[in-house]
């Protein structure tokens, strides 16, 4: 056995390192399958409840055109923000992040792997929910799908940044509480089940969920374009919180 431990240090190609980490993130996500289903449960209920019944007042006469894009936006927030904040908070308290920090995985590598895994999960969830929407009668304009994807990527980045920022700053229990509270507040005030409070352009900057939902409505439901104020709002959110997360992210 002599020589079995002879040093031969070195980092695998960064692509391999990050790919392994993405695989691990996805494996663990799949293992928490019930959490993923649950994360889709609320949006699904909202879609069917508010979309098909008169339970709430929605603007306009096409209920699904209003509700389905809102539900898609809600799902993005649920996974990229609430889910990720809670998971990362606990990973920190378990010392997982510290352990990864003591490995050849770099900080940008970890953040990239986390974001990619979250994006993959979001794509799956959005396809499922959109399919349910189509099945019950939503008729989207596929010609406007590119700007819709654009705002979705911005929203994902903003939510991820805020999630990682909170997980860096707060204890895991506090992160879980705050992330859930923000989710509920956004669900109530974000213009998903009923119209958002009309705060004008300011509202887009205050409520990214409302901005994202409105952008998806304008594009997917009505075949229009994304209002400039919404591009600016989601762009600002993304830049501010991704930068803040990258600055404050700690291994320990």
């Amino acid at each position, binding site marked *: 056995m*002599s*020589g*079995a*431990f002879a040093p031969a240090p*070195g980092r*695998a190609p960064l692509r391999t390192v990050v790919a392994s980490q993405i695989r691990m993130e996805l494996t663990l996500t799949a293992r928490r399958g019930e959490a993923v289903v649950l994360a889709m449960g609320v949006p699904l209920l909202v879609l069917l409840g508010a979309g098909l019944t008169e339970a709430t007042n929605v603007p306009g006469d096409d209920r699904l055109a209003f509700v389905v894009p809102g539900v898609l936006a809600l799902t993005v927030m649920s996974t990229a923000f609430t889910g990720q904040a809670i998971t990362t908070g606990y990973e920190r308290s*378990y*010392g997982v992040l510290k*352990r990864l920090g*003591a490995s050849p995985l770099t900080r940008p590598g970890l953040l990239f792997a986390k974001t990619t895994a979250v994006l993959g999960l979001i794509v799956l969830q959005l396809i499922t929910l959109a399919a349910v929407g189509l099945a019950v009668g939503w008729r989207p304009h596929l010609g406007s799908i590119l700007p819709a994807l654009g705002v979705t990527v911005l929203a994902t980045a903003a939510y991820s940044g805020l999630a990682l920022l909170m997980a860096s700053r707060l204890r895991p229990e506090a992160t879980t509480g705050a992330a859930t509270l923000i989710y509920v507040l956004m669900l109530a005030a974000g213009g998903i089940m009923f119209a958002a409070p009309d705060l004008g352009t300011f509202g887009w900057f205050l409520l990214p969920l409302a901005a994202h939902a409105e952008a998806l409505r304008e594009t997917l439901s009505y075949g229009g374009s994304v209002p400039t104020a919404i591009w600016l709002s989601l762009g600002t959110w993304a830049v501010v919180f991704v930068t803040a997360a990258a600055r404050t992210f700690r291994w320990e």
Partner: protein
Amino acid sequence: MTDAVEVRDVVVRYGDTPAVDGVSLTVPRGRVLSLLGHNGAGKTSLLQVCEGFRRADSGTVRVLGLDPMGDHDALMPRLGIMLQSGGVYPWATAGEILRLFASFAATPLDVDMLLDRLGLRKFERTRWRRLSGGEQQRLSLAVALVGRPELVFLDEPTAGMDTEARHTTWRLIEELRADGVTVLLTTHLLDEAERLADDVVIMRSGVVAATGTPAELTKAAGIDLLEVRADPGLVPDGRLAHLKVTEPTPGEYTITGALDAAVIADVLSWFATKNAQVTAVNTHRRTLEDVYLALTAGEKTRVYR
């Protein structure tokens, strides 16, 4: 070639309380250095600075010639780090965890070999949170070694292990050393330090209390002890003035000082001149434990000389 670890005048404070208060030490390449001390002596805090998890409040640390914080990305692939506890996804299996860290390395060790060597094969499909403390420790050790590091930091490597696992781990660490890996480990186990370490640094309350090889620490002049059983009440005279003679119980004499063969012969002939009936003679070599206890517990224990 630079030393594997160079620590100079490092201070680590938690608030106003210094956990490490001006420690310097060097780990030469290919050697095993054991940081020995009670819980709270500052061992883990010092290790955290070496691993780049904490910045020293003052002083400098170079690890493989690099700055552990500034050169984090360049340094990590060359190190194997075993944390004191936790650090693993609770829902991942032992096999998945080890393979994840193996995949981070350019030329990792064979995962199956490591699982077998550390007795983890039957836990390959067991999730981390279902492993016992000792099994988690063994997996943490495997994670530290899988990347074929040139320097490993082991924080209390055998804590929570049963006797068999402890001996397996010791053999593994001896094999690491034989293969040219540098090891810096912390422990509060004296037999662990005595068996594994080329060099021992004893820490007490954040400072270095003693440094040396186990042999140096135990054989310094005047540390031997001679016990003689003879008639009670003999009063030592000038001939034994250079030694310390006590009679803790009547008829049981303990003599400490620079005891070589000539001195021992002299002591015994002194008893002979007193016409004493000598019924037993014992010599004791001081163990690392004696040194450690003397250094860490102050005057409460026997301090020779």
